[in-house]
């Protein structure tokens, strides 16, 4: 017994894998619909005039962002945590009834929150703050879910056999703390049922409505401190946690440099939080804050590239694996998109560039080369690595995986190139003056000119969605079609077990 590897319990990981896929499909489908609505506005009435209120671009837009961030990505983070956590801490969830209970409770409460978010956003119940649209009852539920996640995490760490925390665990801990801090402070709000009229009546109006504790410029500052760092602790930190585990495991290569991982981790923690103000350049936020945000955004290239270079150099001497394995392809291109996106972001944070880029589709393009190319690719790669071990079956089709990779890569490329052109075109047209010093274009000129780029972007997004459906099908067939292996597949590499 002593020499046999631990049998880990993946019950909770499997549940979250399922929501990763389902919410991924929902979020991306809504995204594709939105993209085509901008190119062809008739699609706002896709389900007829009677349901126009619920199929309209503006109602669906927060549903898209929240479904991919808090549905797809967060589920992916949880799924990998309940897989990676046990393995690097060398302890099974089955060893503690309490942790198992917390894990399952975490999942079911999360699902309740997801359903209430979908209903409330479609009904137009929103605080308007991006990625923090939920009203106070849902906010409280989110905090409860997060605390349960944290209890499970620190519980597992508490009973670990491996005393030293692996790099991925650093990043998972940071994800937990970062989101907790940001979410709490940004969602400070007062329910309006607390207001009392002069005649003594209270509890007036909608019970779920609230008003922000901050006003105007302060509200904007806190919101973008949150918004930018929700990207940090949702789209960067936990995804880096994943790649630090899955790339060495899948390739059989040891991490290139421990020191580089140290520098990148603590660097990222310190620098990232300063950069939120770059969403508010040339706004009414004090100049010194804008300048700080701009400078720290540039410095942010260092820790970001530190992680990415560490990953790419992990493949040193083993580059033939990139050609041979579609799974390695996803992770290597993911790291490359991470480098690309973390260079593009700082460029957009330079004040003079931001003057053109802000409010345009270039920003939308930037978000999507990061999320589709880095976050999406990495989460799918992680699930592809986990599926054979969790379901004890070989992956259904490697050629389907390879085809998916190329279709999605073309999709992402069409997406960000069209949005670059659209964004810079619009930014330049807004500021153009004619020879007499008058504005050269009316606003509508700068909208109609974007039609071809909106159409191309829609096609790019559609290709990515098609690839994601191929991924879902591949995982589904892996779960159900192949004969069950006797025990979990063991890794043949020196990094195994």
């Amino acid at each position, binding site marked *: 017994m002593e020499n046999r590897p631990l049998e880990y319990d993946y019950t909770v990981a499997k549940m979250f894998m399922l929501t990763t896929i389902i919410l991924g499909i929902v979020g991306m489908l809504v995204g594709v619909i939105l993209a085509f609505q*901008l190119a062809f506005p008739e699609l706002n009435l896709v389900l007829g005039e009677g349901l*126009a209120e619920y199929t*309209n671009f*503006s*109602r669906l*837009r927060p549903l898209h962002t929240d479904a991919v961030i808090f549905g797809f990505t967060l589920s992916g983070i949880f799924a990998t945590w309940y897989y990676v956590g046990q393995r690097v801490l060398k302890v099974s969830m089955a060893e503690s009834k309490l942790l198992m209970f917390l894990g399952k409770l975490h999942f079911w409460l999360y699902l309740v929150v997801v359903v209430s978010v979908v209903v409330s956003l479609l009904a*137009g119940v*929103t*605080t308007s*703050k991006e990625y923090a649209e939920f009203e106070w009852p849902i906010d409280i539920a989110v905090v409860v879910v997060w605390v349960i996640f944290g209890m499970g995490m620190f519980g597992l760490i*508490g009973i670990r056999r491996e*005393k030293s*925390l692996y790099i991925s665990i*650093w990043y998972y*801990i*940071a994800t937990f*703390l*970062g989101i907790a*801090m940001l979410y709490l402070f940004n969602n400070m709000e007062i329910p*309006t*049922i*607390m*207001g009392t*009229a*002069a*005649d003594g*009546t209270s509890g*007036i*109006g*909608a019970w779920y*409505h609230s*008003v*922000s504790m901050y*006003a*105007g*410029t302060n*509200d*904007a*500052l806190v919101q973008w401190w949150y918004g930018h760092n929700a990207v940090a602790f949702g789209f960067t930190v936990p995804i880096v946690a994943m790649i630090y585990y899955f790339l060495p495991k899948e390739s059989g290569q040891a991490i290139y440099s421990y020191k580089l991982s140290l520098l990148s981790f*603590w660097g990222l*923690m*310190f620098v990232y*939080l*300063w950069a*939120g103000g770059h969403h508010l350049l*040339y706004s*009414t936020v*004090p100049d010194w*804050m804008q300048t700080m945000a701009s400078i*720290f955004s540039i410095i942010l290239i260092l820790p970001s590239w530190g992680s990415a270079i560490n990953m790419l150099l992990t493949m040193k001497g083993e580059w033939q694996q990139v050609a041979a394995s579609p799974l390695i392809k996803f992770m290597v291109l993911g790291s490359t998109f991470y480098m690309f996106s973390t260079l593009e972001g700082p460029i957009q944070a330079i004040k003079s560039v931001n*003057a053109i880029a*802000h*409010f*345009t589709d270039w*920003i939308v393009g930037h978000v999507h080369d990061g999320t589709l190319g880095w976050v999406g690719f990495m989460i799918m790669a992680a699930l592809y690595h986990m599926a054979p071990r969790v379901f004890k079956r070989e992956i259904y089709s490697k050629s389907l995986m390879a085809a998916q990779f190329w279709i999605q890569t073309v999709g992402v490329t069409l997406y960000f190139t069209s949005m670059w052109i659209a964004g810079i075109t619009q930014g330049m047209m807004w500021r153009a*003056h004619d020879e007499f010093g008058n504005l050269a274009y009316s*606003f*509508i000129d700068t*909208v*109609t000119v974007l039609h071809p780029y909106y159409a191309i972007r829609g096609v790019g997004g559609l290709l990515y969605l098609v690839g994601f459906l191929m991924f879902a099908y591949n995982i589904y067939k892996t779960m159900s079609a192949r004969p069950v292996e006797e025990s979990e597949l063991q890794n043949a590499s020196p990094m195994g077990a």
Partner: protein
Amino acid sequence: MFHWLEKHPFFFAVGVFLVISFAGLVEILPNFAQQSRPVIGTAPYSTLELAGRHVYIANSCNACHSQLIRPFKSETDRYGHYSLSGEYAYDRPFLWGSKRTGPDLMRVGNYRTTDWHENHMKDPAGVVPGSIMPAYRWMFTNAADIDTAFAEQLTIAEFFSVPYNKPIPMKDGSTKIVKMGGSVAEANALALAEAKLIAADMKDQDVKDAVANGEIPEIVAIIAYLNSLK
């Protein structure tokens, strides 16, 4: 030190927390009080305007329209004077937006009328050929939630001392008083009085009839809000 931290999760977590909370403290706190002072001429929203603001938020108008004029010639030419921090003193939440799929609306009340908004909300492309904005026809039938707007006024007056029923200095040296009802019935009566002025400039007979019967459709509230943006 790092090796030691990696074996002691509690201190590791404390270390991470200290490092990540540093920036927020330094950036957000110093100017907090100063930034929330209103400039002269900025008044809180009336009940109807606030109800309209809720309609604006419920339909995520801020997903496509900004309310932030940057200090560039091209922007002040197009939208008017650049934004001042104190103009947002009563904006909870702020509605600056992050994307201009449509034009900025910070001072839309200066150059668009009730009549224009009515036609535009019904059929945007009919007013601006080539527009990709969807129509918002349900606003002509859905009722605005005046009670919730009133509850919000009470809450902000109580918790943030927003000056309702108090004289507010205007740019020309005069003062203005934004009234807030003492009861739900009074708040609804105030909103209806304001709604009647808007409806008088509208053409839609159903909306006019509704207001005459004491109901306030969402379209009336949102137009009141848009007209207040100056």
